[in-house]
């Protein structure tokens, strides 16, 4: 990595829909808000559960694909059997991840989750571009503006909150920091065996939650791709970071997440 400047800290701007925002909304902005409010809605909880269920489903798919690879005769037999196999519960699927020794399998699952996130990111970018939000001018956006868009608008849409902190060296490297990444906020692993030390349990918990982070990684890459930054030239990795020392209970999960994004080609490939 080239010599970095002191990374500058860009915290979020005020959310225009926040009630304490000082400026009077323009008519365009008002219209946009009204339009958004009139769109059909569903319960956020349903969406949250669907989003989280992507991970156990991706594991279940891998299991099924491996089964049919291993033994296609058994697969044929299964098709003939009438009895219904019980559904493997989500928590069992998730804990299976921890047991997987085969790196190829493990990575296949992560790749699947990331791909879903990527496709989702592309569609979300389209959705937000075509929403004609008067606050967003995509044509004039440079990479930094697009990252801010990810931090504010994309995150707010999908996770109900913005990224807590954005750091950049203004040379294509970004850190998106979320101290209370919403989908994992309530996650807590219990120790079925009752034999693990607190440290081992924490380690196991963090490892079990890792696959869940591939989804937002994919989303970030997908958004960037849709807005002109080829996925092949973008790196995105998620790591755990410690929470700042303030009241930790405010955050939810025991660790924050830092998304490290590196874009090698900082000029945008204009869309046709």
């Amino acid at each position, binding site marked *: 990595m080239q010599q970095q400047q002191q990374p500058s800290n860009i915290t979020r701007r005020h959310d225009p829909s926040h009630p304490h925002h000082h400026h009077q909304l323009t008519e365009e902005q008002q219209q946009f808000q009204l339009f958004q409010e009139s769109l059909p809605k569903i319960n956020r909880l349903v969406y949250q559960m669907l989003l989280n*269920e992507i991970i156990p489903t991706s594991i279940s798919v891998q299991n099924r694909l491996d089964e049919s690879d291993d033994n296609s005769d058994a697969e044929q037999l299964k098709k003939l059997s009438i009895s219904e196999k019980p559904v493997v519960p989500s928590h069992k699927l998730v804990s299976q991840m921890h047991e997987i020794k085969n790196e190829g399998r493990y990575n296949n699952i992560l790749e699947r989750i990331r791909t879903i996130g990527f496709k989702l990111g592309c569609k979300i970018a389209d959705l937000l571009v075509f929403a004609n939000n008067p606050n967003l001018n995509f044509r004039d956006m440079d990479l930094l503006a697009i990252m801010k868009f990810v931090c504010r608008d994309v995150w707010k849409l999908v996770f109900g909150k913005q990224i807590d902190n954005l750091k950049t060296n203004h040379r294509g490297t970004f850190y998106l920091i979320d101290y209370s990444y919403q989908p994992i906020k*309530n*996650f*807590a692993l*219990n120790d079925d065996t009752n034999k693990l030390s607190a440290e081992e349990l924490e380690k196991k918990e963090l490892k079990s*939650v890792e696959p869940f982070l591939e989804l937002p990684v994919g989303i970030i890459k997908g958004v960037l791709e849709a807005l002109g930054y080829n996925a092949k030239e973008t790196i995105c990795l998620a790591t755990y970071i410690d929470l700042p020392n303030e009241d930790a209970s405010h955050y939810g999960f025991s660790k924050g997440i830092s998304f490290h994004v590196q874009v090698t080609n900082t000029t945008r490939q204009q869309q046709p």
Partner: protein
Amino acid sequence: MAIETLLIVNKSGGLIYHRNFGEACEKRKKLTSNDYLIIASTLHSILAISGQITPRALKLNQDDIDYTIPYVPGVGMPSSDSSNNSKMSKLGSFKGDDYFKESFTSWNKSGLRQLSTDQFTMFVYQTLTGLKFIAISSSVLPKNNEMETSKNLNLANQIGDNFLRKIYCIYSDYVMKDPLYSLEMPIKSENFDKKVQEMVYNVQ
């Protein structure tokens, strides 16, 4: 109403949560976790048996009995002088300033709901999915005349039900939305713990 102990028992009688609060922490130190497991399964059996021995008269008149539990405002909620902002975000996915504000029907129609002794009072709240929320309170109901006693019992019961339904709401928020959580296994969520502690503290 001072809550000393909260137990959550799953549909097969297994103990999935127990916590002592305040002074009970000292008092109950002599009980091991194994003791609690036994308490849980005993309670589970007792609840099952009590359902069978409900007086016939009660069963026959079931349609006439009103199982509505009125909403008792403010049970387990922070006092009104705390800032509004801290209240709003505190209820997880439940919008508004309380988990619910209407009266509701008790699911417990013929079993044990409350056990009063001269040392403690125990409240039982059972859900349609078989979960049992049990609160043990150090408040003992004074026994004046019979009318007073039954009125007090009733009010205490209502507060108990309101309180335990809110614990159920917290449970559904924290535990049910966690794909890492094995249904029927002990709850180890710190967030759940904290929220429960908050509620117990508010209800003192």
